[in-house]
């Protein structure tokens, strides 16, 4: 478990929502690049050499999006060359490149989201919204291993019954379907028993409570405040049109004035939160092991 995943689910959720939506809705390429760098560095710190394939995939996405936009969009003034009597412009290429980096960073963030945001956290968050959905989800999580075990049992039993050595593909498919059929029958018949016994033990009367091990501590509060401040700066810069950047008809210059710098730096600090937390945990671990 990464250091960031030890935090309270709400702060993890707020962070990912803020960083993903912040990356998606801002057209400014500086923000996309900051977000991409932060996501990639976090992935590298977590997984070390295993991310090389992932990074190649992201670069491929960037190239493909840039090419797509170059072919499809003919806006912009700087003509690079003509393709089938259509203009291929520099602006379209830069726009495609920028949105490619945006998509790649969102994908990288989603990879770490899937890793940090485990089932218990999702159940905790959804259980606060709707207890029915949380109940169904936790049942599904339980049913998957149960049915796997049942299907192994059923297929062993069928294997004893028809001991056919020269099976072809059609026979094998037929056997698979029979196993599926009987597992489904087992599942549906048993489900009614589960429901009745839950009802007999008083499901649904009285207030629902939920078991969880999460507690809000100081670090969570600090990070939530940080995210809130960043949200404030973000909305303010969008309103001030600091965040906007236009590609057509000519590419804007990248502005480095004071309020632009505040915008960039605040986003960079916010997107470095998981990295900071991970490094903090590693230092703590080193210190603890050396103390033994």
């Amino acid at each position, binding site marked *: 478990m990464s250091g960031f995943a030890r935090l309270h689910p709400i702060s993890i959720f707020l962070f990912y929502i803020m960083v993903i939506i912040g990356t998606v809705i801002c057209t400014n390429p500086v923000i996309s690049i900051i977000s991409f760098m932060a996501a990639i560095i976090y992935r590298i710190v977590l997984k070390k050499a295993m991310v090389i394939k992932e990074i190649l995939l992201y670069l491929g996405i960037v190239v493909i999006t840039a090419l797509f936009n170059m072919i499809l969009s003919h806006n912009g003034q700087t003509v690079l060359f003509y393709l089938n009597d259509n203009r291929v412009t520099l602006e379209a290429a830069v726009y495609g490149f920028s949105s490619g980096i945006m998509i790649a960073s969102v994908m990288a963030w989603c990879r770490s989201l899937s890793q940090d945001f485990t089932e218990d956290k999702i159940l905790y968050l959804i259980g606060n919204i709707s207890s029915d959905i949380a109940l*169904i*989800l936790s049942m599904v999580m339980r049913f998957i291993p149960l049915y796997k075990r049942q299907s192994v049992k059923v297929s062993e039993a069928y294997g004893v019954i028809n001991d056919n050595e020269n099976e072809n593909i059609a026979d094998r498919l037929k056997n698979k379907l029979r196993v599926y059929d009987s597992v489904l029958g087992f599942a549906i018949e048993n489900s009614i028993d589960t429901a009745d016994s*839950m009802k007999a033990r008083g499901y649904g009367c009285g207030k629902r409570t939920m078991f969880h091990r999460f507690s809000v501590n100081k670090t969570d509060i600090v990070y939530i405040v940080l995210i809130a401040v960043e949200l404030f700066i973000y909305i303010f810069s969008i309103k001030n049109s600091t965040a906007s950047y236009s590609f057509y008809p000519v590419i804007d210059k990248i502005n480095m004035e004071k309020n632009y710098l505040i915008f960039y730096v605040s986003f960079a600090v916010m997107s470095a939160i998981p990295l900071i937390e991970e490094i903090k945990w590693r230092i703590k671990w080193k210190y603890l092991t050396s103390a033994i």
Partner: protein
Amino acid sequence: MQYDREIKLYIKRILMVVIMIIILFTGVTLLDDRKYIFCGIVIVLAGCVMMYHKYARVYGTIRRNVIIAVLTTMGVVGRCIFAPIPGFKPVTAIIIISAVYIGEESGFMVGSLIALVSDLVFGLGPWTPFQMVAWGLIGYAAGMKFIADKKNNTFVMIMVSAAGGIFYSLFMDVWSVISITGVFEIKKYLYYIGTSLPYMGIYILSNIIFMLLLKNSIGEKLERINKKHRIF
């Protein structure tokens, strides 16, 4: 007591609509170029939340919940088994068959929860709400009365599953257009439909194959359980 609860419910619903309108309004006015992605995700998520709300209020009995959990598990396992073959999945067929028996709202639940849980396995992302709504709407449509009445007619069921494949492909193309190019234009949308045509073919084919394979096996069990316990 009853009256109080009714009023609370209406206040909750009005609040949900107002919050959604505020978010959409700020999105449209503040954001210039990427507002399509933001507003798209907001609309889709709000639709899901409202549907869940309605389900929990009107249909949320424990027996129905457990049956939905079983069908969802079957869909998720089906998607995981066929993961290596792109596009060739039994999910849409399972959703349609179950929705025909368990009704429209429950069909929506099965579809959207299959998308949610299987994306926990394959990776969550901004496309998850779109998938949830796409499969949920297939379930909702298949559960409607005029389709559900013809559930023993094989030809109608094959047509419905083909239509489900076409709808899923077209709906997810909306997402790919607004995520990759940032704006929604009909020309680009048609281009994307053109590039995803082979996938649409695979979807339709797999839906029809799995519909024919699984129709009797799932339908029989649901019918039997319904005859025995009167759940749906």
